């Protein structure tokens, strides 16, 4: 991209070149002067950085991680729904299904998490220590607790239905359910802190909203799964669905409105596509469908909303992890931006 035609140098053009250079050396790089094909090397500038080599390292998470975010989130929310329902002695079938969803999620999550490790055999090293300052550590322990309690809750639930409603078992079941719900609340939200509290600009920019975003997304998918399990006449679930997708609309709007460079991965490229589509499918689309269902009572609409929400929250998780990688590649941000 030479600004100059090929020239035949002579004394006069040489001297001109000389003082262009001198000027260039004094002021900033020699733009407007001679910029031969591919040269000179970019002189050091803040905006240029070091040969445009990213300062930060890209997240090295594999696809299991966003998948785990999705599964864990849904399972956690399901546990909450289960307990809420049973407390308010709602439909026992719904409670059972919710416990099952939670338990299955609790069963699926560890393998997903482990398979991403560089050394899966050493997963248990995570349980050597508990570090509050490490969301990853908090998460590992929470997951352990959650898997245990959610499993316990279905197990006791099974026993109760075999042995009939003996009070002690019911007590244990509810206790286990409560604990599963408690850890479920963390499960659904901590992943937001996990990605938010890092050096990746696009992630830590949203550290204040990510936990809510992921929690809402989790609730959204939990509700949807239950609905698809034929609990599609529960008004409560539809209300929760509406609330979740309502929140997603707001979240999506906020992201779209902020055109800050740091937000680019959420608006452009592969990651941008995922995040946007994810937002659409888990926000506006299910919201309108649910409203329509409430008015018409047509269950097809409700099931459609459920399917859309599931796809949406899955895409959202993938989108955010992708966005993190793209953000790390943007060498300019950590060089120019003065962080909060």
């Amino acid at each position: 991209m030479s600004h100059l035609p090929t020239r035949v140098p002579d004394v006069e053009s040489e001297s001109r070149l000389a003082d262009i250079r001198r000027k260039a050396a004094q002021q900033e790089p020699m733009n407007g002067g001679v910029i031969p094909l591919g040269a000179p090397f970019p002189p050091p500038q803040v905006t240029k950085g070091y040969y445009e080599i990213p300062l930060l390292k890209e997240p090295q998470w594999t696809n299991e991680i966003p998948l785990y975010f999705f599964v864990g989130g849904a399972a956690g929310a399901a546990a909450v729904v289960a307990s809420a329902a049973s407390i308010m002695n709602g439909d026992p079938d719904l409670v059972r299904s919710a416990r099952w969803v939670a338990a299955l999620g609790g069963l699926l999550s560890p393998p997903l998490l482990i398979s991403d490790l560089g050394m899966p055999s050493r997963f248990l090293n995570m349980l050597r220590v508990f570090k509050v300052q490490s969301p990853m550590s908090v998460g590992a322990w929470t997951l352990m607790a959650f898997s245990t309690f959610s499993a316990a809750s279905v197990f006791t639930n099974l026993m109760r239905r075999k042995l009939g409603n003996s009070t002690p078992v019911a007590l244990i079941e509810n206790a286990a359910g409560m604990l599963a719900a408690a850890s479920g609340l963390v499960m659904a939200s901590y992943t937001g802190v996990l990605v938010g509290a890092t050096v990746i600009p696009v992630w830590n920019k949203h550290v204040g909203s990510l936990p809510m975003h992921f929690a809402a997304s989790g609730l959204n998918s939990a509700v949807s799964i239950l609905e698809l399990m034929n609990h599609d006449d529960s008004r409560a679930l539809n209300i929760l669905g509406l609330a979740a997708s309502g929140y997603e609309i707001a979240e999506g709007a906020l992201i779209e409105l902020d055109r800050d460079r740091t937000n680019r991965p959420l608006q452009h490229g592969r990651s941008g596509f995922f995040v946007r589509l994810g937002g659409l499918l888990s926000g506006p689309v299910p919201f309108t469908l649910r409203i329509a269902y409430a008015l018409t009572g047509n269950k097809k609409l409700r099931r459609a909303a459920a399917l859309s929400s599931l796809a949406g929250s899955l895409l959202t998780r993938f989108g955010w992890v992708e966005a993190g990688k793209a953000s790390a590649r943007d060498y300019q941000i950590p060089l120019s931006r003065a962080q909060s």
Partner: protein
Amino acid sequence: MPSLGTSFGRGGATTAQQDLQFSDAILIMGSSMAENHPVGFQWVMEARQKGAKVIHVDPRFNRTSAMADHWLPLRAGTDIVFLGALINYALTHGKYFREYVVHYTNAGTLLRKDFKDTEDLDGIFSGFDAEGKCYSPETWNYDGAPTTQSRNGKHPGHSDDTGGHGKDRGGEAGEIDQHKEDPTLQNPRCVFQVLKRHFSRYTADLVESSCGIPKAKFLEVAETFTSASGPEKTAAICYAVGWTQHSNGAQIIRAAAILQLLLGNIGRPGGGILALRGHATIQGSTDIPTLYDILPGYLPMPFFEDDSDKLSEYIEKHTPKTGWWANFDKYVISLLKAWYGDAATKDNDFGFNFLPRVSGDHSHFGYWLDMADGKMDGLFVMGQNPAVGAPNARLERKALSKLKWLVVRDLVETETASFWKDAPEISRGELRTEDITTEIFFLPAAGHAEKAGSYTNTQRLVQFREKAVDPQGDCRGETWFMYHLGLRLKKRAAQIPSVRNAGLNALTWQYETEGPHDEPVAEDILAEINGFKTSNREQISGYKELKNDGSTACGCWIYSGVMPSRDQNKALKREPKGRYGHGWGYAWPSDRRILYNRASARPDGEPWSERKKLVWWDKDEKKWIGLDIPDFTETKAPDYKPGRNAKGDDALAGDKPFIMHQDGVGWIWVSSGLKDGPLPTHYEPLESVSTNPLYPNRLISPVADKKERSDNAYAFPNDQRFPYILSTYRLTEHHTAGGMSRLLPHLAELQPELFAEISPELAVQLKVKHGRYVTISTMRGVIEARALITERIKSLLIDGKTVHQVCVPYHFGYKGLVTGDTVNDLLAISEEPNVRIMETKALVCNVRAGRIPHDKNDLKIWRQELGRPA
């Protein structure tokens, strides 16, 4: 090292790297010290911290330039113009150190009336023999000094086919101790005045128009450097192959020597000329030479035609009456005793005729061209990789295929060992593996950690190294190989006691051995090098003990003293003491770290200044003392005056620091020993894009040997086909021909591909993008390289015409983790007249955007380049 040898008396750096820290200015030229001698460079940094000005003159802005206070880009091959201008500046601006010049140099010496300068004869000195293409030094002689002649009427050191005698120790063509002189330096025929006239045309303007250095910048630097000398200050010069590898390399260094003598910078702390040598112990391999024309300790190898077969006559011819070399006979005879032991007797001239004779140009290029012409049967290649490292590598590789047998001893299978299967000539169809009849033996060598032995480094410091680990498998050290090869040859020779074998049969070859493989004990060899009394094999304490009657033996007189007793190996000592770390290793001669250091004191023996004191005369003790070991007879008083017919060292007065020279002074003027003239003169490189600004009718050195032939062709003067200057250099990340770096991942990854450094301006002209490939061609061959377009390369304005320089590192070859085209395919085999070195730093080439296919078509593309109208 002929320039340092002739100028000062010894073929070695006059100073030590550590001493640079005491300099007030350092001129680094013809070297990228930071890149190629990084460890030594710490002392330059040290000096810089103390406020010394560092000046780097180099075609490329490289890692050394980045550390310098001044970088001056110059057109490759114009160093003598630059240095000549510095000399002229010192002379015309009264910057020279007059008292030093008057007492310690031959500036006052009168020259013969019949001498004619290049300024008089348009580019040649008097005594030029046009068809012989060589000089007779007779007219260069001092006025009043009788000339010596060889049997064949030629003058010592000036018969055509030789590197030449006395080149490493001062000439010998005349008894120059007898001569007229004028201490006032007024006489128009005295060296000083001749010098003034000779360099009068080397001006700042010439530097600007010929080197491409802005006049103002030159003057600034000239002032900086020349004013950093005198009684209170000293300046040093560092050079390496950016100077030596030119068709007039020796004379470039001579120019530096003259400058340093004029400025009084030799023999003084922070002064001197630091020859930055190459391979570990490359200095050692000239002290105990791997060269064909000298014997250990810079004794001349006898030549077939101009040396007698009588020892007495040989000695007579090579022994000056005055100066240290008067001891010549002792050193030769002791060497013969070391080599031939009891077989060397008075009656058989101590086996003088066991020594082979030089009968032609036996230098690398001399015999390699013979090889190319099928005149050689076999070759040992040990610790060398000429298939990549030698100029016109294409010719060199093809020549190998003409051998009957080839032995390669190396750490790794080098290109030289495998040329028969993977050389470019094979892929280009120039050679067919099936047709190559050469039988090749690859013998694995032990690395330096796997064997004991010594290095002699760039500052003449002999350092002994113990074996760290045993070599693996069949790997063996050099001493093992040589020793056992010797045994086998002697066994053979013993069966056929012909005259031809007499030397081999007489050769002493008993060394202590150790280990399962009978490895000779390196210290046993060092003991022989140090020398001993033949009567009782008792070690001698130094070369002063050597005798000319066969009662002493010594393998290399200058090293004598390194092992004064069997249990005392000074090269192995690791207890540095004092400013120069005496007690760490052993610097020849006599552990002197700064040579000619008598010059650090005034004629009366007092230091020139407190700041620059080094050795001085202690009036009470009546001896020379100081921070270094005096390079002077310890008890010779400053006011000592020699008697009428005193001989040897006694013939030198107490104020003559250059004790190796017949007249005891530093030589601004070299009356003989150099084959291309008594003074440096600028000639263009053998291939040049310019004309000689000084002598339009004398483009190149009249005595350089181009070895021109169809397979070693040259571009015409100002050849339009090859409009750019090509210069080759080194990268810190690689080592020479790459055998030691291209195979090591941790080095190979740092510079993984061959590139050419090109200026942005040239890039525009060539329409080449950064990082894309360019094709570079010369009259010898064609290669491709990545374009590294950088502002660090400046196109220069020479005579109003823009000249572009292209610089390429030469480390790459076709083997290893990282490979690249062999840059030496582009170079020509040529011989500088004194040391027979090739010109690697300045030639001409063409550059095009694009690649070459690396098959038959390479040659098509290349011929197209040659075919373009000249």
